């Protein structure tokens, strides 16, 4: 159980994120839920690359000890970059909707329906 603790925590974070997105009506809270899901996926990615007793994959001063997997960390970094761009865009959309609709509540932001 101890070894796959990070995976359980990652699953929990993703679950909390999805529950926030489904039940919270405030748009800003939904975007927080979205970044929670993103954080969960990032944790899962880094946890997959973990090697017991491995050191950080910096090759310049690397004694021939075992290193953790660098590719997953590159993927996590790319996901963080994409996450920043997405969250920045979503928050500016919520700002515009608050100014035009007067509310940031998903329940009231439903002019497009039917």
């Amino acid at each position, binding site marked *: 159980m101890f070894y796959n603790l990070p995976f359980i925590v990652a699953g929990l974070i993703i679950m909390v994120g999805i529950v926030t997105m489904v039940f919270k009506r405030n748009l800003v809270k*939904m975007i927080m839920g979205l970044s929670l899901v993103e954080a969960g996926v990032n944790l899962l990615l880094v946890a997959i690359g973990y090697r017991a007793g491995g050191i950080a994959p910096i090759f310049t001063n690397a004694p021939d000890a075992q290193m953790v997997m660098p590719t997953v960390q590159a993927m996590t970094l790319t996901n963080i970059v994409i996450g920043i761009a997405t969250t920045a865009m979503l928050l500016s959309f919520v700002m515009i909707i608050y100014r035009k609709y007067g509310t940031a509540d*998903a329940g009231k932001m439903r*002019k497009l329906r039917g």
Partner: protein
Amino acid sequence: MSLQTGTGFWDPLLWVVAFAIALLISYLIWARGESTYHKDTEAVKPYLSGNAEPEKGEVHIRAGNMYWGFTEALKGYYSRVVPLHSGILNDYVLWFIATAALVLVIVGVIG
């Protein structure tokens, strides 16, 4: 030239030729039409048994009441499906997660 669709074939050129012949025949019938009809005379106005022709705007049947019969017949279906498109973002996310869970259960059990 013709598209092989497993059990049969479809040759668009033959169809176009047949369509041209049909157009030709209908043009011939149309050409033998009423010779006394002239463009800008009284004959152009619609005959509404003497009543004045209503204003252009009312004559045109608008889209809203085009298929009211169809939507009336399927009222049971539409009264259930249209509200599903609620426009609330939470429901969109819920539908997405629910479908993923359902397919996961199906593939997990059967697949």
